[in-house]
């Protein structure tokens, strides 16, 4: 463990880990050293001078080497003559600090008075007013009155839009550089900068479009004044009027912990609604950051058009019916079509919903087909085997860990993981990116591996073959514990180790985390990829350890949970191959997203869908049941690292909507199933009793918290901005099977199918983008500027051959689909492939690779 040192604050001795920043060290012992510019997640700069203290050191007799003591036996200190900044000081043995002397008090006092000479004091209209570090510290340490005339204050622009999401108030800025440092150090998007000098120093954005980063909202959290405010919350409420509720982001597999600021709203009919979303500290998951999609993408919870009662399609027209009638109808149809039932579970269904849906399907079919949507990725069972071990904390990984990101455009698919992997790379972790095309993470990768779409497995096989050559890595494996080992060894004999440098980097580190996406892979190919990743981890003994294991970059918030509860993409594929006569579709929109699914669903005899809005899928259904969004109900999501996290009721309920689990349970009751549980917690209790992996995941356990460092939020707003203390649960990371040393593991040789050559022009590769037209995201109008128009990316050579220029309107056609889009020729697409961002067009397109032709169409 790290060495501890003794240091003294105001004469009292304290112990702390060597190398701790002095401000942090004091904070750990509940002593406040006020700061503005210092932030525990950023490097210190010492710009604001608020943290002035007296520094000294133990007086040591040079001859004897002993600490000098006064007549009372107390140690004697030697003090520096001037005040020093505490934030730029690292704690060393014998360091002494005085924080309450007259000189220190005077120093802070003067700094605050000076800061306030050019601060506008428009606190009554400032969004930060009430949770403002400058306000708090002025009350705590300030002079009480100013000697400067209000009339002499500096006058600057009050309302500068930095992009459409963030507003800058130049007058309020105290030049602490937290926002610019956040963009530079944490994100690596160099989009904010200081301009000019001295009193004219100001923040400017230097990107086009302005403030072009996916993490811009975080700057408003860490801004110690109201200089940066979000357009979303602007004047939404005063901070003290907000009721903070804990929730989990429903958009991506990271599972960021959120705090929703809620307030009753006249326009929403007096309901409690979300006014803003802020990060909630969870150092295991999102630390104190969230992406802009999570922060601003909450408007679906109360957007216009939310379904308010069950709707039945009668002779082509929608008729509202009541819940009991809807239950009876579904129960009757299930009795009729139970032997041919297809279930599709959307990515944002909670574990409770998935469990009740599975129970319902089990009532009418002995082996129900439980599909997930989107059905683009699979292998959740392998993640359960060789996922990351207990104690995995991305923010703590360093040189001892190698990270492989394969087949994923990481920033678009899981922004906060991207952020953490980028920072891990900065700390010295060996990051290797393998993809068929350039992605943003390449910038921070130690090595980049390119393969052709569909051949991702060969990369992993190459690494595995390389590992086999190194007896120190694979020698200790026992045949008895790992089934199929000899077959795998035999199969890999013939494989030439490829990408030697990248392989060496990955294999020489102690730990290996593999983030596997699904780009350019069919479901079957993705199963092979996941298996190859599991093979590599088991072969090298990297499975089942902290900071080591397999993580799937799912296209949704709770797809790992769906796999843990028995759903799979293979089931979806089987259902689409032989469409059933009845569908139950929970919170998914396959009709809009996939042409093949659209055909399979519209051809069925009875379709019941739970939905928030009238989507194309609901339109295609016979009965639409209004579900509640994540904000109106309780539940749990399992994130990509298999951390089960609990979200709470945040918002007032819209209409007669119900949580999905309640709907499915009520239908089950009518089919002589068990009595419906009364709460989500009771459903989870059911799950803990029946699903061994979730045995510990009871609601009280998920709500447990512990003290997290660095300390941010809470009463100490000035320290970490306004990220919130986590008081509602850090969740529970479910250990993978491999962590149990005696558990049986299985490897299986996987081979690469050479991509079938087609006579079509190009292969269409669906790629994911963060800002899309998903049902959960589209209602957030503020973000519409960031959602790109439907586009298709082409290689330069292909574009020239087809006579297409950047910006042309093109038609993309293939077996059963046709989309019009804008062509992008920007060098990202490999030759022979057309990259189609999913969920941007309103017409369905394939969700897995397919053949296509692209042609230019007239204006």
């Amino acid at each position, binding site marked *: 463990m790290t060495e501890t040192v003794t240091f003294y604050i105001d004469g009292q001795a304290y112990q702390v880990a060597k190398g701790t920043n002095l401000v942090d060290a004091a904070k750990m012992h509940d002593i406040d050293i006020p700061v503005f510019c210092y932030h525990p997640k950023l490097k210190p700069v010492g710009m604001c001078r608020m943290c002035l203290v007296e520094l000294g050191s133990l007086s040591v007799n040079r001859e004897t080497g002993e600490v000098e003591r006064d007549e009372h036996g107390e140690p004697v200190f030697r003090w520096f003559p001037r005040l020093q900044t505490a934030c730029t000081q690292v704690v060393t043995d014998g360091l002494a600090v005085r924080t309450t002397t007259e000189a220190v008090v005077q120093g802070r006092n003067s700094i605050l008075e000076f800061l306030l000479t050019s601060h506008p004091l*428009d606190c*009554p*209209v400032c969004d930060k007013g009430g949770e403002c570090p400058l306000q708090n510290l002025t009350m705590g340490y300030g002079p009480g009155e100013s000697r400067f005339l209000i009339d002499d204050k500096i006058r600057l*622009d009050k309302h500068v839009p930095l992009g459409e999401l963030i507003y800058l108030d130049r007058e309020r800025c105290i030049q602490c550089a937290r926002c610019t440092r956040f963009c530079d150090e944490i994100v690596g998007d160099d989009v904010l900068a200081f301009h000019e000098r001295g009193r004219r120093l100001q923040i400017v954005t230097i990107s086009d479009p302005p403030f072009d980063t996916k993490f811009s909202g975080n700057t408003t959290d860490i801004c110690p004044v109201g200089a940066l405010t979000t357009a979303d919350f602007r*004047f939404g409420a005063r901070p*003290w009027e907000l009721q903070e509720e804990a929730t989990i982001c429903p958009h991506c597999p990271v599972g960021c912990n959120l705090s929703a600021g809620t307030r009753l709203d006249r326009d929403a009919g007096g309901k409690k609604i979300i006014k803003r979303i802020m990060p909630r500290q969870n150092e295991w998951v999102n630390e104190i950051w969230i992406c802009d999609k999570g922060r601003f993408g909450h408007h679906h919870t109360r957007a216009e058009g939310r379904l308010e009662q069950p709707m039945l399609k009668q002779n082509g027209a929608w008729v509202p019916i009541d819940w009991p009638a809807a239950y009876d109808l579904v129960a009757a149809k299930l009795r009729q079509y139970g032997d041919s039932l297809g279930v599709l579970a959307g990515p944002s269904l909670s574990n409770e919903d998935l469990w009740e849906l599975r129970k319902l399907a089990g009532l009418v079919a002995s082996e129900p087909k439980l599909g997930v949507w989107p059905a683009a990725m699979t292998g959740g069972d392998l993640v359960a085997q060789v996922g990351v071990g207990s104690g995995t904390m991305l923010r703590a990984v360093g040189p001892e860990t190698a990270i492989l990101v394969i087949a994923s455009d990481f920033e678009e698919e899981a922004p906060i993981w991207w952020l953490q992997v980028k920072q891990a790379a900065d700390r010295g972790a060996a990051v290797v990116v393998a993809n068929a095309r350039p992605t943003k993470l390449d910038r921070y990768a130690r090595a980049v591996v390119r393969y052709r779409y569909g051949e991702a497995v060969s990369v992993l096989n190459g690494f595995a073959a390389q590992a086999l050559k190194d007896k120190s890595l694979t020698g200790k494996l026992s045949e008895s514990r790992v089934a199929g080992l000899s077959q795998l060894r035999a199969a890999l004999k013939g494989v030439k180790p490829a990408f030697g440098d990248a392989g060496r980097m990955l294999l020489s580190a102690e730990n290996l985390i593999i983030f596997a996406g699904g780009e350019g892979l069919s479901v079957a190919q993705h199963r092979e990829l996941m298996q190859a990743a599991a093979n590599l981890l088991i072969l090298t003994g990297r499975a089942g350890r902290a900071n080591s294991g397999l993580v799937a970059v799912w296209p949704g918030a709770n797809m790992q949970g769906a796999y843990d509860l028995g759903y799979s993409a293979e089931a979806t594929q089987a259902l689409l191959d032989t469409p059933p006569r009845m569908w139950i579709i929970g919170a998914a929109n396959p009709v809009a997203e996939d042409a093949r699914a659209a055909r399979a669903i519209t051809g069925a005899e009875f379709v019941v869908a739970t939905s928030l809005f009238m989507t194309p899928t609901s339109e295609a259904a016979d009965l639409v049941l209004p579900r509640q969004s994540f904000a109106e109900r309780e539940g749990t999501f399992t994130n990509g690292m298999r951390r089960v996290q609990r979200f709470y009721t945040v918002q007032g309920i819209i209409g007669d909507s119900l949580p999905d689990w309640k709907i499915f349970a009520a239908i089950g009751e009518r089919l002589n199933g068990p009595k419906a549980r009364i709460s989500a917690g009771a459903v989870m209790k059911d799950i803990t009793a029946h699903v061994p992996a979730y045995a510990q995941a009871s609601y009280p356990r998920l709500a447990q918290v512990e003290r997290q460092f660095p300390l941010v939020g809470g009463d100490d707003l000035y320290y970490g901005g306004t990220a919130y203390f986590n008081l509602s649960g850090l969740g529970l990371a479910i250990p993978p099977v491999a962590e149990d040393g005696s558990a049986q593991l299985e490897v299986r040789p996987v081979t690469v199918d050479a991509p079938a050559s087609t006579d079509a022009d190009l292969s269409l590769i669906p790629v994911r983008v963060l800002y899309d037209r998903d049902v959960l995201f589209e209602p957030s109008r503020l973000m519409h500027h960031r959602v790109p128009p439907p586009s298709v990316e082409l290689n330069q050579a292909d574009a020239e051959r087809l006579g297409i220029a950047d910006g042309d309107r093109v038609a993309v056609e293939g077996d059963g689909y046709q989309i019009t889009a804008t062509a992008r020729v920007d060098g990202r697409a490999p030759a022979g492939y057309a990259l189609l961002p999913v969920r941007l067009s309103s017409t369905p397109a394939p969700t897995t690779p397919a053949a296509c032709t692209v042609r230019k169409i007239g204006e």
Partner: protein
Amino acid sequence: MNLLRGFATTLKYLFEDKVTVQYPEEERPVRERFKGRHALKRYDNGLEKCIGCALCAAACPADAIWVEAAENTDEERYSPGERYAKTYEINMMRCIFCGYCEDACPTEAIVLEHEYRLTFSDRRDSIYTKEMLIDPPPPGVPGTPQQTEPGRYTRSIPEMKDPL
């Protein structure tokens, strides 16, 4: 004897000024500092003084005030600054007329005036909305929202004289 003394008192008061006021036909003037119903004030140019800061609501010991704020634009301007009160409601059944809201107001927008006739026969009528509370604009001046030329109102709080 006592009887006569009583009649004498009556006779004396017969010639003095009458104390009884014939309310509601007649109203007795209230004191200058009487705290009656609130009024939301306007500037001489018709813009509202209220900036929707909700400090009155925060100061209110009876939790009687509800404020929701919104942003001004030059096309639709309610107050000189960036922010105005979109919703401003006082529940007169809760209000204790303590005047803390008046003290808390940074722009002197809310004033407890002399109106004390606050009767209603439905609980819901006890909620006084912004339209009921706000003073009419001065004669000949347009009310709000107003269209203003860009760049004229750039301060988040209107310029006010230094109180000293």
